[in-house]
């Protein structure tokens, strides 16, 4: 996920009144959803978790849409133009197994324990130290990434539509602020579902026309095999240990770093994602949330990879000093080349919607963690529920203003997004190790959560800033370094947790009911809703089906 830091100036799209009509309708609907959802907010649970009442297909599509921000779309197309079919790893091994694990293994503990956030789970399982540290780290990261989304939006809008950066930042910030303040999580989720379909309506025509332009898949494949080598069109070619490939990673770092540590960290403990599942109406729907999301995720890779590969054919020097186009320009370039007015407006709308949803997912998870985990537990405790709804609205406004601030801050860094991607491995990976050990090992003590989190974060940072940046060890690329940092953070967190647990007191076992694998909490079991016993709603079938399908997708790209 690389930054659209500079889009070539000649990418200005030939938009007309038709395209702006389509965009205008979208903005009106976004606000309309906010106003219409307003009357459903009565309690803080409505505002922060949609009253735990949404159906699985809604939370599932929101789950995938919260991930399908524009930085992901532009970034993965860029990845494909640069590294080729290796991009599939971010989807088939780097997402599906973790999403299935979240649905099948972790969700009964998350949803069943009735926690409202990921840090709240750590409070129950460990102690206040782990809780406060994880809440603060998360709130901090959420505002940073919301700002980066906003800034990336501003750059893209400036290049494509010619709006000044500050106008784009203020307009997008205002819309996100308005609809989350009005309708809370419900309106964030509803807008994400809408955005999911608009993005598909933008990317499908673009991929189809792109393929047609380069002579279909065969033409694409032949031309890139000739110019970039045979490995460019395979997933695993050249990833043997010790062999050289553009990604700078071998199969072991791909499987362990990306497939296990980074991906499990992101998908299972990043609250911006997990929050969508926690808002589902019952345990079965919560389990199915990431599983329903897994199926589109398997195929979305083609919609971002094909435009990237087509751009690599059409502009052979893309991303090098011989071309004005950066890797990030792949999708905007094809939009400009191929889409007539009308579909062009849909594509612009889709990109803007994706930027706003990426930001909104972070803002809506930030306001929840800040209100329920920091404010209501450590600052102003025990007030009436209406107070926390009001505070949630206020902190949403503050969060959006802060992200406008971080957006302007982001402007002063040249390659902020590559760094932020790395920062996420700092925040998500240690959280994941603490989680998974806490969930599977009863003996992990109360204090071990805090120290594991701290050690993991520090180790990942040391690996990145000292070992990689100072060239103490040779890792060929940023992405390769991210994989190694992730593994380092995981191992350090795990070792420290085990060590601390051996010397400190365990949590009394009656406090662990329903929080550790193999235990159940008395209040946790709930009867299945009518219709949930249908075979196509069985989590195990959906989950294993997704894993098998993702593995099967690798076959045509492995030889």
């Amino acid at each position, binding site marked *: 996920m690389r930054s659209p830091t500079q889009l070539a100036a000649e990418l200005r799209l030939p938009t007309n009144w038709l395209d702006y009509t389509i965009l205008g309708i979208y903005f009106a609907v976004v606000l309309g959803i906010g106003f219409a959802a307003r009357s*459903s907010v009565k*309690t803080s649970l*409505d505002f922060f978790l949609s009253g735990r009442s949404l159906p699985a297909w809604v939370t599932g599509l929101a789950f995938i849409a919260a991930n399908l921000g524009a930085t992901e779309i532009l970034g993965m197309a860029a990845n494909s133009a640069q590294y080729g079919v290796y991009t599939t790893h971010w989807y088939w091994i780097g997402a599906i197994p973790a999403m299935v694990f979240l649905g099948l293994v972790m969700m009964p503990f998350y949803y069943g324990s009735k926690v409202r956030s990921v840090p709240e789970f750590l409070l129950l399982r460990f102690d206040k130290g782990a809780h406060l540290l994880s809440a603060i780290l998360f709130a901090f990261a959420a505002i940073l990434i919301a700002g980066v989304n906003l800034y990336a939006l501003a750059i893209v809008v400036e290049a494509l539509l010619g709006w000044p950066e500050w106008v784009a930042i203020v307009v997008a910030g205002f819309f996100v602020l308005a609809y989350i303040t009005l309708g809370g999580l419900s309106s964030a989720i509803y807008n994400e579902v*809408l955005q999911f*379909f608009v993005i598909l309506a933008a990317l499908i025509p673009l991929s189809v*026309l792109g393929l047609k332009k380069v002579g279909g898949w065969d033409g694409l494949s032949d031309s890139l095999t000739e110019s970039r080598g045979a490995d460019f069109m395979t997933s695993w070619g050249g990833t043997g240990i010790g062999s050289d490939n553009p990604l700078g990673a071998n199969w072991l770092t791909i499987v362990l770093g990306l497939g296990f540590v980074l991906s499990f960290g992101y998908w299972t403990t990043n609250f911006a994602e997990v929050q969508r599942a926690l808002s589902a109406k019952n345990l079965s729907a919560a389990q199915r949330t990431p599983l329903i999301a897994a199926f589109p995720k398997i195929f979305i890779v083609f919609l971002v990879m094909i435009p990237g590969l087509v751009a690599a054919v059409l502009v052979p020097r893309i991303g090098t000093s011989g071309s004005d186009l950066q890797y990030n320009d792949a999708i905007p370039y094809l939009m400009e080349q191929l889409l007539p007015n*009308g*579909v062009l407006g849909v594509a612009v709308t889709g990109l803007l919607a994706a930027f706003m949803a990426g930001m909104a997912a972070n803002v809506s998870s930030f306001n929840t963690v800040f209100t329920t985990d920091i404010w209501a537990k450590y600052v102003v405790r025990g007030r009436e529920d209406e107070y926390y709804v009001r505070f949630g609205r206020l902190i949403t406004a503050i969060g959006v203003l802060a992200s406008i601030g971080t957006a302007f801050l982001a402007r002063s860094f040249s390659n902020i997004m590559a760094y932020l991607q790395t920062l996420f491995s700092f925040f998500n990976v240690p959280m994941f190790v603490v989680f998974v050990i806490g969930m599977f090992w009863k003996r992990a003590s109360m204090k071990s959560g805090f120290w594991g989190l701290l050690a993991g974060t520090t180790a990942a940072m040391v690996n990145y800033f000292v070992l990689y940046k100072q060239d103490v060890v040779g890792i060929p690329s940023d992405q390769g370094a991210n994989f190694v940092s992730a593994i380092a953070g995981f191992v350090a967190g795990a070792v420290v947790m085990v060590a601390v647990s051996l010397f400190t007191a365990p949590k009394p076992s009656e406090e662990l009911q329903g929080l550790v694998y193999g235990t159940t909490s008395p*209040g946790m079991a709930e009867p299945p809703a009518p219709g949930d016993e249908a075979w196509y709603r069985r989590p195990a079938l959906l989950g294993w089906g997704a894993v098998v399908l993702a593995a099967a997708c690798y076959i045509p790209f492995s030889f």
Partner: protein
Amino acid sequence: MSEFYSDKDVQREVTELQGKSATAARLFDIRRIIGWLFVVYGVIVTIAGFTASDADIDKAEGVNINLWTGLGMLALGLFFLVWLKLRPVAPPPPDVVAGDEPRE
């Protein structure tokens, strides 16, 4: 708050809030919004397809992409409206929070 903030505290608090929650009863159905938005988009883009100039079609590799995308969006919109019509959300039964009532 005791030394441990116990899961029973969270469960009690969340169960209480869930009992008072208004989302299930008052939140509108998103299928209606997706349906109408895509019908409107579908009509607009399809019309753009019918009136497409040669330049538009040449640009899109000889495909009338507005027409096809428009029809696709229209079909998606209609799908959601039909789904909504065939399977409206059942009104929540009066004892919707029955599971949360005292068990004894």
